């Protein structure tokens, strides 16, 4: 047999197999765009995109149920002309042989927000070289009182468009901001980036979300960036606590509302609710102290070794000095701020003392002056709440204040 005849035989056999095998469209195929001449296809499982001629798209649509190429093309079709395109679709996963195993969609850790915090640079999923990396955690099922906070990250980012991040053209460094109340520049030269939101498939187990957050945090902070979580409810700090205490010993300082004594005392479980944070955190080997600052159910946490409660009145009066008896000097801390501790126009605190901005501002500055801050969160951001615009602007001020407390050297107390 000649070489030419041999090649033709091989090609015929290949075509024969393509023609005979029942094929089916991938279940992960999405159509992004179709017009009279072309179609753009997207394969959700791999993230691949493919632009195909409209006739090929029309042919592909006929594989919604398993069928052979001969069946869908018809007896008179020039099969040989179609085989190349069919092979391409198969090679890229848009078409499969009937019964062929198909990879599930690529596991996504983060999603890209439409607006970045302060319009700072976006951060891809690699170790951030910026000083601060923000991650949104749109999750609010860990605290009954935080309904609506899953929309907090997006809403806070939108509000932050009034407080933009800027780069000095001459130095290439962050311009920072100016704190009028302290009469000083803040965060000058401190770079900030936004890693996006952790992917949440509402209805899945909390552990699945938190595992994704843990993995993203580990990658993003591998080069030393300070993690800042935007909640969400207070429970979203749990993956950050796990990670940061594994790197070095840590104390937790949470400014917020701890209203359920029973939950504080609940035995550790796979699900970490906001009110069970003290017990869960103190169960971590690297966490020795947990200081709750703000309203707290009477007696909550009393049986927990390492737990301390600082009431609003004491913190408002004495600032960070009120925390000193409960923390080691210079102890590395994780600082969480729950907006539930802030008095707002719509606060219905039923006689419970809450913080005003000036006191919180002073407290956060004082904490930063006394302790290195390894991680931050700002939670309880609920854009459905009355006067959200006001609360959002206050939250942004507190966030910048906390960042200043963490990153500005020798920040004097307010």
């Amino acid at each position, binding site marked *: 047999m000649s070489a030419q005849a041999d090649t033709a035989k091989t090609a015929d056999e290949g075509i024969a197999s393509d023609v005979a095998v029942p094929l089916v469209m991938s279940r992960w195929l999405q159509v992004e765009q179709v017009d009279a001449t072309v179609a753009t296809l997207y394969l959700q499982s791999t993230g691949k995109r493919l632009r195909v001629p409209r006739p090929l798209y029309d042919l592909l649509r006929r594989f919604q149920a398993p069928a052979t190429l001969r069946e869908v093309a018809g007896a008179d079709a020039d099969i040989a002309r179609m085989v190349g395109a069919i092979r391409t679709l198969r090679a890229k996963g848009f078409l499969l042989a009937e019964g062929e195993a198909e990879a599930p969609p690529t596991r996504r850790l983060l999603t890209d927000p439409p607006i970045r915090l302060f319009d700072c640079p976006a951060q891809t999923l690699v170790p951030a070289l910026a000083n601060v990396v923000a991650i949104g955690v749109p999750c609010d099922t860990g605290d009954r009182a935080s309904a609506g906070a899953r929309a907090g990250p997006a809403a806070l980012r939108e509000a932050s468009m009034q407080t933009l991040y800027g780069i000095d053209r001459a130095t290439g460094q962050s311009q920072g901001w100016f704190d009028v109340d302290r009469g000083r520049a803040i965060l000058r030269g401190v770079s900030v980036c936004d890693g996006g939101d952790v992917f949440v498939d509402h209805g899945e187990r909390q552990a699945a979300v938190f595992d994704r957050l843990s993995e993203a945090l580990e990658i993003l902070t591998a080069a030393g960036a300070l993690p800042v979580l935007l909640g969400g409810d207070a429970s979203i700090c749990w993956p950050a606590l796990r990670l940061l205490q594994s790197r070095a010993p840590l104390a937790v300082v949470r400014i917020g509302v701890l209203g359920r004594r029973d939950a504080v005392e609940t035995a550790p479980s796979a699900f970490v609710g906001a009110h069970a944070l003290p017990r869960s955190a103190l169960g971590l080997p690297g966490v020795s102290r947990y200081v709750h600052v703000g309203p707290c159910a009477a007696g909550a946490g009393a049986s927990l070794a390492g737990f301390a409660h600082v009431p609003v009145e004491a913190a408002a009066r004495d600032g960070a000095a009120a925390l000193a008896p409960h923390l080691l000097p210079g102890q590395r801390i994780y600082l969480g701020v729950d907006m539930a501790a802030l008095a707002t126009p719509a606060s219905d605190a039923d006689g419970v003392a809450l913080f005003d*901005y000036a006191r919180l501002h002073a407290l956060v500055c004082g904490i930063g002056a006394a302790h290195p801050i390894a991680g931050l969160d700002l939670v309880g951001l609920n854009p459905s709440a009355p006067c959200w615009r006001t609360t959002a602007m*206050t939250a942004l001020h507190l966030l910048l204040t906390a960042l200043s407390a963490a990153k500005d050297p020798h920040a004097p107390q307010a």
Partner: protein
Amino acid sequence: MHRRPDAHMLERDTPPGATLFGWPAAAAPHAGAAGIEVLGVPSDAGNGIASGARFGPAAIRRASLGLPARDVEGIGIDGGAIDRIEHAGIDHGDVDFIHDCDWADALLRIQALVEGIAARGAVPVVLGGDHAISYAAVAALHGAGPLSVVWFDAHTDFCAWPGGDWHSHKQVLRRIAGLPHVERIVQIGHRGITYDDESARSSKMRVSTAAEANAMRADALLDRLPSRQPVYISVDIDAVDPRWAPGTGHPVPGGLDVATLGALARAIAAGRDVLGVDAMEVNPLLDHRDMTSTAAASILAQIVSGLSERANAGRPALPPLPTA
């Protein structure tokens, strides 16, 4: 000679009775002349972020009708002052051309209306609306210079001005500082986290932070205002802490409380010749239970009370009471 703004320029559908403090509507037959003339400017054209301040004048008027006679949010208006407030002014309603012309042209027309009020010897009280409106009101007092401007505001409003006839509430004070008859600006209530240090944007301006203002005595504030120099008072409601005045487009935490701001403003009204007043940036769409419009009305009540006090002390700030 007393001449009122052209009737066709004013809203005709202001609900009966919805005038500031229940004063007579200027067009009413029994209105007569008054020492204070109110003009509403229902505009948010100069606000780049939030619309809704266009409903501010109506909300302030409604809130003013609900003020209790004494101890409103701790403000403590005495009964005598309330009596005088009830007869001190007339209300022209809202201008009706805001959405029929360009913003710059609207400001010129507002300026002309305020000039008319000033020419009658009355004190214009302008209800906003966004703060860019204050430029027109201050510009209208060009014959009264040199003038001091007291600017209650969380912001310095000194953003860059690209020139031309562009007006925004973010650069309104920069433009006012450029008016030749404005000699000094006392800015009170600046605070929060900003892009830069804005405390020295003009040699005419002295900035006091909210923290300083909360601890400020009224006589210390008066010391910054020459006793023989007329004054214009502008109140951006965002000078008040957003916990008490959330309904405004650019809230900044850590502000003054209503009582403190009201007391400072009243002291100025009672201690200096105030030629004009405004209350700006009340946005009912963002408000909660009318807190913000009530705060604005309360502060205006304090200012009017101070004006009355000065008039009763023999100063020519207020003409004789109108006859009903």
